């Protein structure tokens, strides 16, 4: 546990960074690099790697000072970098030199990161992925295709999960790499979504090469390394507390309040059900956070993703049903690509958010898979029968 001296030290260091690199006047990368050098990017990381080796809980102390002075929320600027890559690099990269070469530009946001997991043939069944990694001297040669990759067009580095051995059961033949997105044989194409925007990408590998020193974890142990990444994604999603009525539900409530001419008792009751669901989930997240401070997160944490996704859809469906004929218009399907790191669909007009919300129950784990996870990992129910259990990957039917 943290002690008072650590708390003071973290707060002092943060105040020093703010004093020497005022986030309101220096460029963001300079400010964030200073945070890294002071060990404030991830206070629980070792010294020299963006941390101080103190309790993870003290990150909030640093963030309060840094963000209170006008500093950015780095997770928003480099989401895959901060949320997934950093903890995986820290745990699995082969040497401190490699770790340092990645972590500092990651922290400063000069190098953005993306995650190359999903494939056209491997969505919910991620372990069935087909992108191949074949050893060639000191390198690995990569061939295949990834999909649904946010930020691939702006990322310098990608977290890649690839098949290094097709002759063993699917979970056992995977290896985890970091790939240079600017290297030869890596082609990124925009993937246009139903909103008309291209928030995501397809990434094609044609004899792309990765030096073996950029492998994370042992050969064939990629699944376990990927679990580190996904665990951290989940805890990053846990996020910070929110006000009552904030978030997606605010869109519906303010739209409702702005249109007394469209209000009906039936719609009022529908909105009150959505509001209650949002509030119950907000309080459940608060309770989850309270549980995490007194030892391990409770089952509450895993619920947020599932509830939030379905609630988003119901909220925007409500908005559309409130608007009626006025709602079935659009601002145009001209092909666009948002250059900001965060997802563009949530800043457009309501109708775009309505369309964008359809992805919520698919991305980051479908709601169907989330219910399996709740049932199996929290309630302890038995798994479903698997037709591919124990079968070498290359013999599994695909299509």
């Amino acid at each position: 546990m943290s002690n008072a001296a650590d708390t003071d030290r973290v707060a002092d260091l943060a105040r020093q960074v703010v004093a020497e690199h005022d986030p309101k006047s220096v460029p963001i990368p300079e400010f964030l690099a200073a945070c890294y050098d002071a060990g404030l990017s991830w206070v629980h990381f070792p010294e020299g790697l963006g941390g101080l080796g103190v309790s993870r809980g003290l990150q909030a102390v640093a963030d309060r000072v840094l963000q209170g002075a006008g500093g950015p929320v780095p997770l928003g600027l480099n989401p895959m970098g901060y949320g997934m890559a950093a903890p995986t690099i820290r745990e699995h990269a082969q040497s401190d030199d490699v770790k340092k070469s990645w972590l500092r530009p990651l922290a400063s946001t000069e190098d953005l990161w993306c995650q190359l997991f999903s494939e056209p043939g491997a969505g919910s069944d991620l372990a069935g992925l087909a992108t191949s990694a074949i050893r060639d001297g000191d390198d690995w040669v990569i061939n295949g295709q990834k999909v649904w990759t946010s930020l691939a067009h702006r990322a310098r580095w990608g977290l890649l999960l690839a098949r290094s051995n097709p002759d063993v059961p699917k979970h056992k033949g995977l290896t985890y790499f970091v790939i240079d997105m600017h290297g030869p044989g890596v082609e990124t194409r925009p993937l246009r979504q139903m909103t008309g925007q291209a928030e995501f990408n397809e990434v094609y590998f044609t004899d792309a090469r990765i030096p073996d020193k950029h492998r994370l974890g042992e050969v064939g142990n990629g699944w376990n390394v990927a679990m580190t990444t996904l665990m951290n994604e989940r805890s990053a999603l846990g996020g910070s507390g929110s006000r009552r009525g904030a978030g997606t539900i605010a869109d519906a409530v303010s739209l409702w309040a702005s249109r007394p001419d469209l209000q009906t008792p039936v719609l009022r009751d529908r909105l009150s059900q959505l509001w209650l669901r949002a509030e119950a989930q907000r309080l459940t997240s608060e309770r989850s956070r309270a549980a995490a401070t007194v030892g391990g997160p409770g089952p509450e944490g895993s619920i947020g993703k599932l509830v939030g996704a379905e609630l988003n859809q119901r909220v925007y469906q409500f908005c559309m049903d409130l608007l009626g004929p006025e709602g079935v218009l659009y601002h145009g399907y001209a092909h666009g690509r948002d250059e900001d790191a965060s997802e563009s669909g949530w800043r457009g007009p309501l109708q775009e958010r309505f369309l964008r919300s359809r992805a919520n129950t698919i991305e980051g784990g479908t709601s169907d898979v989330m219910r399996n996870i709740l049932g199996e990992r929290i309630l302890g129910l038995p798994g479903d029968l698997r037709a591919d259990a124990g079968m070498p990957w290359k013999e599994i039917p695909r299509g």
Partner: protein
Amino acid sequence: MVEELADQPRNQAEFTFSDEQVQLRTAVRKFCTENFDEQTVRRLMESDPPFDAKVWTRLGSELGVLGLCVPEADGGVGGSLVDQAVAVEELGASLACGPVFGTVFLAIPALVAASAGPVRDGLLAELVEGRRTAAFAVADRAGAFDSAAVTVTASRSGEQWTLTGTVPRVVDGGAADDLLVAADGPDGVALYAVDAARPGVDRTPLVTLDLTRPQATIRFSDAPARLVADSGEALRVIEHALQVGAALLAVEQVGAAQHLLDLSVEYAKTRLQFGRPIGSFQAVKHRLADLLIDVEHARSTTYHAVWALADGTDDPALATSIAQATASAAFARVATDTIQVHGGIGFTWEHQAHLYFKRATTDAALLGSPEQHRSRVAALVLDTASAERVPRVADGMPA
């Protein structure tokens, strides 16, 4: 045990239970296992009165859990409503027989809120010790008090008050030693105590859907009464009792719903059909995952209401309505789905599912239905919402 509860810090962080509260939970659970096992509950619910007075006295005198938030000066242990909630959750889980609703949820909180005086102090001491029981003969409208709906009149002759009128469907009223009655007198509505053994009290026991939660219609004919809260404070006292009662009723629902979820999960793991546990089928697994979410939401909103009432950090009317709307719906759904998951056996008299289903139906109807509480939330939140930050609505003109 109870002495330790009084020594806790008063401003406990929301959702964080103290070691003493964890011990309290264990002690009440053990007591319930020993005294409210299913066979005992079935025997008691068909007895007259439908509880064991000796066991009730032990709950008060030995375990000390009937008036955990009664101040020490009034013969209680000076704990908080959180302590009381922890005990109530365990009593709810086992369908503990006894006047929990009339005495613990309503009468004791009303007396705690009333000004000190010989009548109030004497009653409180007896109820807390479990030597006498009480029922709350105050009709509510959806969990709120409506003085215009009072059906009993009070008249005074010298220092002696007498009550006349009928209160229908008083929960725990059939066996209660004392009745707290709202009556309209010369100065307006006040709260009186009537010794049920005195002349002028005529009670008609009613057959209830849930045999563990009995009711009686009570007719007063010049029944001698003692003033507990005069017209200056009766309204406040009754409203407070109804709010605390609604919060504790929600806690009871959480305890019972969790019990049913555990029961259904266990059954889904062990019941085999088609050669597999039925919990391995997604149809069953996903149903149970949804119940898990509902129970977690009920727990979060309910304990938030308890904390709000204990430390005043939220509007008690809004917090209790959020809790009631969520917990009533959750318990009802868990109870219906428990029957479904159990299949044929779940519909039999010998299985415990129907006992909880009847309690769920009853609890949802008492102190306001989920729809009534949802409507109250809508009035507090939606009808007062401001049209700030209304999201842009596309109007068909290209951006």
